[in-house]
């Protein structure tokens, strides 16, 4: 995982080579005058009285202005091999002049909103070689920006000289790896959505899927610039979409981390995130810092949530703290702005890290589910097997043979009882919980079979017992069976089931008269079944004991109250 992230970051840095072509002079400072005069385009106009400032401070919002810059081209430049272009990226309409001649523009600048026609944000303009002079050349722009819904801090993004076509190539080169990231995010979104829909419906997968979509939305909104030219007023909408997607991703990221590591603290952690994000979005100046604030808020809470997870010993919490904190520190420490291409590399790598963890988590849950199913199947099989195991079945059939030959009517009644027990057992063996009424009925069918087999009378009383309460199947049946096997009752016996409450728990006591004879030995399997069933149903929240008390054998089962019993009734 770590190497994967490292690889992505290195790739990002490697391709982030500067656009600056050393063959062309950098434009640094420009001269600016508000107003309009066609003469201002001229190469020999004296602009010494104009205000001088770096190009990125130029602000054409709510005004019409001219920008002039003197550039001296190196003689060595072979203009045929590398045609010159002016690259402009500004939230404004503008016209571009080279040595007094208009070489292009974007929209039509005007003195007020009604006179201005908005143009595209990013443009490049070819400078014909015939306009080029040795020595100083003058680049002039006429710009206005009346169509922005809000005031922006830096409406001019870019003003540079470049080889014609180089900008487009550079943009494409920048975008290609990002498209790969978009693919990874889309794949993650689809994969975890499918996991949520088809498998376990766990919230973690759903949140991760939505989170991938959120980051993907932010990335796509980011990618739109450069791939699809759009009029500059739409830029605000695009920035809003980015901020919105970032906020949604941040919230989803926090929700996911909280789901995994700190479910109990969910409310206040999510509230904290909401407040921090709202504050960032409201108070931070400029869209970039708003978006950055939103993302940082989310990451801080993720680190906190994972920290809670570490204290609780949740698997993967430690790694998550380290990775999320690392990402946080790296993002804050970067001098060259915040939300750029490298940021998306890092965030995608972080999501891949979460993907890997989530897949591991799903795998563990899947394994646990499979194990539980296997255990349940094994218990069901065991319950059924006990009834067809030779000692029970063959002795019963031998007794049936005897009754048929000596007292056919009793023989038929015994067959009825045997059928009743087998039927009752088949009906409940695949259930996780059965009402006590059904379990008691099974026990009584068994006692009836045993009565015919031993030609003695066995009964089970259960006065004042809430028969709607449910319990795992076959437990009492197993204990009743055990009680008869390990007691030599000469004249039959009356078994008693008593139920008492201990707080929110119920205690079942099965009392069997103890008439001496052998005990122990064969109890192992029956008791193992009882314990396994209780474990399967109640985890560790149960107790079972069997003891000889006075002249009785007492089996005691303690388990939680069946909260649903009344609703099921």
């Amino acid at each position, binding site marked *: 995982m770590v190497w994967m992230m490292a690889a992505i970051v290195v790739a990002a840095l490697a391709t982030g080579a500067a656009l600056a072509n050393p063959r062309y002079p950098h434009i640094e400072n420009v001269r600016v005058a508000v107003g309009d005069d066609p003469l201002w385009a001229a190469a020999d106009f004296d602009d010494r009285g104009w205000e001088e400032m770096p190009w990125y401070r130029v602000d054409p919002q709510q005004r019409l202005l001219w920008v002039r810059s003197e550039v001296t081209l190196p003689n060595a430049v072979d203009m045929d091999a590398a045609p010159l272009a002016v690259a402009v990226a500004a939230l404004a309409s503008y016209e571009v002049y080279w040595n007094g001649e208009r070489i292009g523009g974007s929209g039509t600048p005007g003195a007020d909103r009604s006179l201005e026609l908005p143009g595209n944000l990013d443009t490049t303009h070819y400078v014909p070689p015939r306009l080029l002079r040795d020595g100083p050349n003058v680049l002039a722009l006429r710009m206005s920006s009346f169509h922005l819904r809000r005031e922006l801090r830096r409406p001019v993004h870019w003003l540079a000289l470049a080889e014609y076509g180089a900008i487009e190539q550079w943009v494409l080169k920048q975008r290609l790896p990002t498209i790969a990231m978009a693919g990874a995010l889309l794949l993650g979104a689809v994969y975890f959505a499918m996991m949520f829909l088809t498998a376990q419906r766990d919230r973690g997968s759903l949140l991760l899927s939505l989170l991938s979509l959120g980051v993907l939305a932010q990335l796509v909104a980011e990618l739109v610039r450069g791939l699809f030219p759009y009029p500059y007023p739409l830029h605000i909408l695009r920035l809003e979409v980015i901020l919105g997607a970032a906020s949604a991703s941040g919230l989803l990221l926090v929700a996911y981390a909280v789901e995994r590591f700190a479910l109990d603290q969910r409310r206040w952690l999510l509230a904290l995130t909401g407040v921090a994000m709202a504050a960032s979005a409201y108070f931070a100046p400029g869209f970039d810092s708003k978006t950055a604030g939103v993302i940082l808020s989310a990451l801080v809470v993720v680190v906190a949530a994972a920290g809670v997870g570490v204290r609780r010993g949740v698997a993967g919490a430690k790694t998550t703290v380290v990775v999320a904190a690392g990402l946080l520190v790296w993002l804050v420490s970067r001098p060259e702005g915040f939300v750029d291409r490298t940021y998306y590399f890092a965030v995608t790598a972080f999501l891949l890290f979460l993907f890997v963890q989530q897949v591991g988590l799903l795998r563990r849950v899947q394994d646990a589910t499979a194990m539980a199913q296997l255990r349940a199947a094994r218990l069901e099989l065991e319950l059924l097997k006990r009834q067809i195991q030779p000692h029970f079945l063959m002795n019963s059939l*031998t007794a049936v043979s*005897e009754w048929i*030959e000596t007292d056919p009517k009793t023989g038929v009644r015994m067959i009825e009882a045997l059928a009743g027990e087998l039927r009752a057992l088949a009906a409940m063996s695949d259930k996780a919980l059965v009402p006590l009424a059904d379990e008691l009925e099974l026990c009584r069918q068994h006692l009836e079979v045993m009565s015919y087999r031993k030609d003695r009378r066995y009964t089970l009383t259960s006065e004042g017992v809430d028969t709607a309460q449910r319990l795992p199947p076959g437990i009492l049946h197993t204990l009743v069976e055990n009680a008869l096997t390990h007691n030599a009752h000469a004249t039959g016996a009356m078994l008693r089931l008593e139920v008492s409450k201990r707080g929110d728990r119920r205690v079942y006591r099965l009392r069997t008269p103890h008439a001496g004879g*052998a005990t122990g030995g064969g109890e192992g399997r029956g008791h193992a079944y009882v314990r396994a069933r209780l474990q399967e149903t109640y985890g560790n929240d149960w107790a079972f004991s069997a003891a000889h008390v006075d002249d009785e054998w007492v089996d005691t089962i303690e388990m939680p109250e069946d909260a649903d019993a009344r609703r099921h009734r």
Partner: protein
Amino acid sequence: MHVVIVEDETVVARRIERLVRRILGSDLATIGMAASLRDAVGMLGRADDAVVLLDLNLSGEDGFDLLHRAAAEPFQTIVVSANIDRAVEAFELGVVDFVPKPFTEERLAKALARVMPRQHPAERRAPTLLAVTLAGRVDLIPVASVIAIHGADDYSELETSDGRRHLHKKTLTTLQRLLPGDFQRVHRSHLVNLRFARSMITDTSGRRVLRLANGSCVPVSRTHAARLRQIEDSA
């Protein structure tokens, strides 16, 4: 015939008793019910036709141990059991028959017929092990290692190829009935495994003796000598 039924299933025990009475009729000398093997041993004398009908699945008893202890007793044993997984082992230990539950009168009659002296030995599965008790422990002696068996009052003494001797509770008569054809009576009180017989000679005092592989000699009575020669000729 003396019969004891060891069975803790009331109705099953009642069935066995009823059917045994019908099958044996006047051949039945005594019949009783026992709750355990120990009780059965106390109830039966040393009669050669004493039979225990044994359920291997007595509550609280280990069927394996029960089978071994029964095999070491003087009486013959018919196992009547719900579990047939011990059948092979039971036959190796010399039980007369293994009757799976549930059973018909015919099946039980067939088992009882095998106890009768007139039963042809070939129809029986011969044991491969003989159980002997020593200080309360049951040891199993491979039948193939037994060279000769000597009558010793109510017991019999097994002489094995490793030079040891073991006391067995069954009488020579009972053993002769159980053991494979290799074991031949050569004398009123000697049973010999013919695989280990080397030569029949007359010793200095004029007695006929059978010399065995381990060097010992077993006296041969006149009645058995003729039959031994027949076996020798046919071999």
